[in-house]
C-alpha cells in the first residue's frame, strides 16, 4: 500500500490518502475503516437524467464522493472492499444524505478521514506502508480425493479452489477404475494450479498431503509439464516444495507453515509468527493448564493481576465492536505492552486466526499459574 499523504495527529483527528496495491492491502484497509469515518474516492454512479424529449436516461457518471461510513464489507474471494454510507459532499449529481456504495479497488487512491487515530490504527497504517516481504505462498493441500488450493498472503489466506472427488478403493476387478479416477483428480488439481498460481507473485509453491499423494501429484505435475511444455512450471521446478501433513483438511495448513523447509522461507512474516504463537498457547494449555486462559472475562481478570505475558487477539474484535468496546480492547493491548508483555494481533483471515476466533478471539499465556480462573464463569 502506498501512502501518498498523511496528515494526522496521533490520538486525534486526521486524514490519510492511500493507494492499495494488492489484495492484502484491501484487508488492511478493511481493518482501518470504521463506522463513523469518512472516505473519499472516485466512483461511478448511475444517474437519472431528464432528456429534452421527456424520456429518462440512465447514465453512468464518474464522480468524486465523500461518504460517511455506515457499513463495510470485505469480499475475500473477489478481493473487493465495499463501503456503504451517506454522501456528505456537495455534488451536482448526488444529493447530500443520499446513500451510496463505494468500491475500493486496487491502484485507485482514496482518502480516509478519521476522528480519532488510536494506536492500533496507526499500527495498521505503519504495517501497510512497510514494504516488508510478504509470505506469498501457494499451498496445495491434499489427500486422496480432496484438494484445496490456498494463497497465503501477508495477512490473508484465500482459498482459491477446492476439488473433491470420490476415488474408489482398489477392488479386484476394478483396479483400472482407481487409476483413472486418480488421474482425473490430478488433472483437475493441475488445472487449478495453473490457473491460480502465478510464479511472479508467489515466492514458492508447496504441495502438502497425507500419505503419498503429494509424491504422486508431484510426479504427475512434472510429467505433464514436460509433455505439454508448460514453461511456468518447468522454469520454477526448484520452487516447488513437498511437505507432509496429517490430513487434507483446512486446519492442517498450520502444519504446513510449521514445516522446517517452509519455515525458513517465511520465518519473518506475520503468518509464521501467528502460527508459532498459537502453537505455544496450545502447548502451554496441555502442559500447564493453569498458565493459559481464553475468553474476554478470564483475560481481563488475569490482566488485573498483572499476569499476562503474551496476549493473543484477533482483529475481528476491534473491527466489529462499537467505540466503547474498541477503546477497551485498545487499552488492554497498550497496557499489556506497557507491562512488558507481547501482543500478537492475529489476522482472522489466516488459519490460525480462524482458530483463535473459534476460541472466543482472545487468549493469553500467563506469567504464573492462576488456578482459580477455572471457577470464574466465562
Amino acid at each position, binding site marked *: 500500500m502506498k501512502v501518498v499523504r498523511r496528515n494526522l495527529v496521533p490520538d486525534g483527528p486526521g486524514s490519510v490518502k492511500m493507494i492499495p496495491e494488492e489484495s492484502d492491502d484491501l484487508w488492511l484497509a478493511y481493518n482501518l475503516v470504521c463506522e463513523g469515518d469518512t472516505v473519499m474516492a472516485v466512483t461511478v454512479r448511475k444517474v437519472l437524467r431528464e432528456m429534452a424529449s421527456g424520456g429518462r436516461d440512465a447514465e453512468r457518471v464518474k464522480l468524486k464522493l465523500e461518504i460517511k461510513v455506515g457499513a463495510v464489507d470485505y469480499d475475500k474471494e473477489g478481493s473487493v472492499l465495499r463501503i456503504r454510507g451517506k454522501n456528505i459532499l456537495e455534488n451536482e449529481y448526488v444529493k447530500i444524505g443520499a446513500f451510496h456504495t463505494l468500491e475500493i479497488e486496487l491502484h485507485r487512491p482514496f482518502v480516509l478521514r478519521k476522528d480519532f487515530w488510536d494506536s492500533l490504527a496507526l499500527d495498521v497504517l505503519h504495517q501497510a506502508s512497510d514494504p516488508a516481504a510478504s509470505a506469498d505462498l501457494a499451498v496445495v493441500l491434499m489427500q486422496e480425493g480432496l484438494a484445496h488450493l490456498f494463497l497465503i498472503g501477508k495477512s490473508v489466506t484465500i482459498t482459491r479452489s477446492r476439488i473433491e472427488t470420490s476415488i474408489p478403493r482398489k477392488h*479386484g476387478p476394478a483396479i483400472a477404475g482407481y487409476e483413472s479416477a486418480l488421474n482425473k483428480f490430478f488433472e483437475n488439481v493441475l488445472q487449478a494450479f495453473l490457473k491460480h498460481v502465478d510464479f511472479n507473485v508467489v515466492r514458492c509453491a508447496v504441495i502438502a498431503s497425507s500419505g503419498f499423494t503429494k509424491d*504422486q501429484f508431484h510426479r504427475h505435475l512434472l510429467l505433464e509439464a514436460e509433455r505439454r511444455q508448460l514453461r511456468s512450471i518447468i522454469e520454477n521446478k526448484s520452487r516447488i516444495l513437498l511437505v507432509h501433513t496429517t490430513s487434507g483438511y483446512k486446519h492442517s495448513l498450520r502444519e504446513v507453515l510449521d514445516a522446517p523447509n517452509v519455515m525458513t522461507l517465511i520465518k519473518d512474516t506475520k503468518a509464521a509468527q501467528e502460527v508459532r504463537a498459537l502453537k505455544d498457547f*496450545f502447548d502451554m*494449555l496441555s502442559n500447564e493448564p493453569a498458565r493459559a486462559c481464553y475468553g474476554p472475562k478470564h483475560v481481563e481478570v488475569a490482566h488485573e493481576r498483572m499476569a499476562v505475558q503474551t496476549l493473543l487477539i484477533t482483529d475481528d474484535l476491534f473491527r466489529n465492536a462499537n467505540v466503547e468496546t474498541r477503546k477497551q480492547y485498545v487499552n488492554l493491548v497498550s497496557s499489556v505492552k506497557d507491562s512488558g508483555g507481547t501482543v500478537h494481533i492475529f489476522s482472522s483471515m489466516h488459519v490460525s486466526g480462524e482458530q483463535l476466533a473459534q476460541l472466543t478471539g482472545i487468549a493469553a499465556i500467563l506469567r504464573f499459574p492462576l488456578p482459580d480462573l477455572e471457577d470464574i464463569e466465562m
Partner: protein
Amino acid sequence: MPRKVNYGVDYDEVYGDYEDYFDDSDIESDAGEVPEVEQDLIKPGTWRCSICTYDNDESMPFCDICEVFREPSSICNNGNNRTAPFKFDCPSPDDLVSRGKQSSKAVSKGALVSITEKNGSVRTVPITGRQEYSSPLASGRQLPANETTRTSSEDNLHSLTNSLSMNLEVNSERSRNVTTRRAASPAQYKPEAWMLSDNEEGSKNQLNLAIVGHVDSGKSTLSGKLLHLVGRISQKEMHKYEKEAKLKGKGSFAYAWVLDESAEERERGITMTVAVAYFDSKKYHVVVLDSPGHKDFVPNMISGATQADAAILVIDASTGAFEAGMDSNGGQTKEHAQLIRSFGVDQIIVAVNKMDAVEYSKERFELIKQQLGMFLRSCGFKDSSMLWIPLSTIENQNLVAAASDGRLSSWYRGPYLLDAIDSLHPPVRDVSKPLLLPICDVIKSHSLGQVAVSGKLEAGALRSGLKVLVMPSGELATVRSLERDSQSCTAARAGDNVAVSLQGIDGGNVMAGGVLCHPDFPVAVATHLELKVLTLEAAMPILIGSQVEFHVHHAKKAARVVRILSLLDQKTGKVTKRAPRCLTAKQSAVIEVVLGEAVCIREFSDCRALGRVFLRASGRTIAVGIVTRIIE
C-alpha cells in the same frame, strides 16, 4: 502390584454407561401383558398375511392368496435385555440368542421390538410368560427360568405374538400410506418372510474379519498366505505374483501382492487401502479385511474395519519391532487395538508373527502375551475372548495345520490359526430392522454396470428389484442385482458384504460415506451433533473451536467442537463438572460438534454401526464416542 488393576481407561465401563443411560426406566411395565396398542382393529380369530395383507383364518397355516407360510414371529426375550454390552458378568446377547434358538424352534432372531424406542409409539413388551423385569442385568440371570416357561407356554406365545405382529402390521401400513419420506418408527417395521434368515438350513454364517497391526508386522502376507493355503489362490497365480515380485526386487512381498493390487502399493511395499478377500473355513464364510498399518492411513483402516465382527491383531515378534509397535507415539499396535475395541468387536485373535526370527522362543511369546495382554485388558477385552497364537508366515507354521517345527510344537499346544477363526462366536445380526447399508465404495465393474456400491449390510435385508433410498442425496433407486464375492446372489441379509448395482440414479449422487436405506425409514442427515466421547491417552487438549476430523462408518468430514457440555465420571457416568474449559487425555465428556458437511447418522441407541464416531486430529485418534443426540 495387584494383578487386576486397571492400567488404563476401562472402556467397558464407559460404554456400559452409554447402555445404561438408555435402559433406565423403560422397563417398568410388567412383562407378560399384551401391549396396550389397539387390539380392536384385528378381527378375532384371523391373522394377516404380511405379503398380500389378506386376513386368513386362524386355522390356516399358510395364506390363502399367496401361499406364504404364516409369520414365524415371536419376540426374543432379549429384546429388552440391553445388557450393557461390555459388562461380561451377565450373558452376552450372543449367548442369549443361541440359547433362545435352541429352546424354541420357531423362534427367529428377528422381530426385535425395541423397548427402548425413544418415540415410545409401540410400548411392547417381550412376551415370555409372567415375568417381572426389574433391571436389565437382573433379567439376564433370570433367563434359565424364562426358557422353561417359554417352552411350556408355546401356544400362548404364538397367539400373543401373532396378534402383536398384526398390530405392527397395521401401524406400518398406515404409516406407509402417508407421505413417503416421513420416518416411521422402527418398531413398526415389519420384516418380510424372505428376509428372516433360514439359519436352520445349515448355510454358513458370514464372518467379517479385520486384520490390523503395526506397520510391517506381516498382515498382508498373512492374509495372502492364508488365502493360498485354503485354496483360493491357485498355484499358477502364486507363481505369477512371485515372478513379478522378484522382478521388482520385492521377492519377500510375493504373498502380500495377493491383496495389495495397485501399482503404488506394490512399489512401496505397503498397504494403503483396505483390501477385501473371501474364503471359506469349516464354519464360516470369512471376509478378510486387510487394513493398512501406516499411521497416515488410519482413516482408511477405520473405514474398512468398521465392517468387522472380529479381528486378528498381528504382532511382529522380532526384537525391537514389538517394542516399536507398542510405543504410544509412533506405534500403531495400541491405536489399532483401541479402535477395534471401540468398533464393538469383543473377540480378538492375537497372531504373534515372525516367530522364526526369535527361534520360536517361549519366553519371547510369554513376554509379548503379558505386556500386550495387560494393554488389551485395559481396553476392555475380556481374557476369555482373547486368543494367542504364535506363528510364522514365511515358514508356514501354525497357520492351517498344527505346528510341524519341533521348536514350536514342543511348548505350544493351542489351536492353529484356522481353528481359532472357527472357534469365534457368530455375531448377532439385525435382520429385522429396516434396511441400512453404509456405502463403503462406489465401483464400476462389467458385471455390475454403471453405478454400483459396495458395503456391509448393517441391518435388514436386500433383494433385487427393491427400491432403496440413497442418502444424503435423497434419491430413489432400484436394485438391479447383488453380488457377493464376485458371484451374483439373490438376497443378502444383515452382516453380508455385498456389491449392489443400482438403477435409476446418477453416479454423481452416490458417494462413499452415504447410506442406502429403506424408502420409508430414511436415515437422518445432520451437521450438528451431540456426542459422548472418551479421550484417548495420546490426545492433545480439546478446546471449544478445536478442529478435528470426524469419522463415522465410512464417512469422514472436517468438524469443529462448539461446546463442551460436561465432564463425566468414568466409573459412574455422573456429571462431575459443567462446561469445563478444555478436555485433556483420558476423560469422558459430552460435547457438541458441528460438521463441515452433512453426514448420514443415527443415534447409537438406534443403530450401533451408524452411531459410533471417531475424532482424529494431527495424525492421531484423540477421542472415540457415540452419538447421543442429533441436534440438526
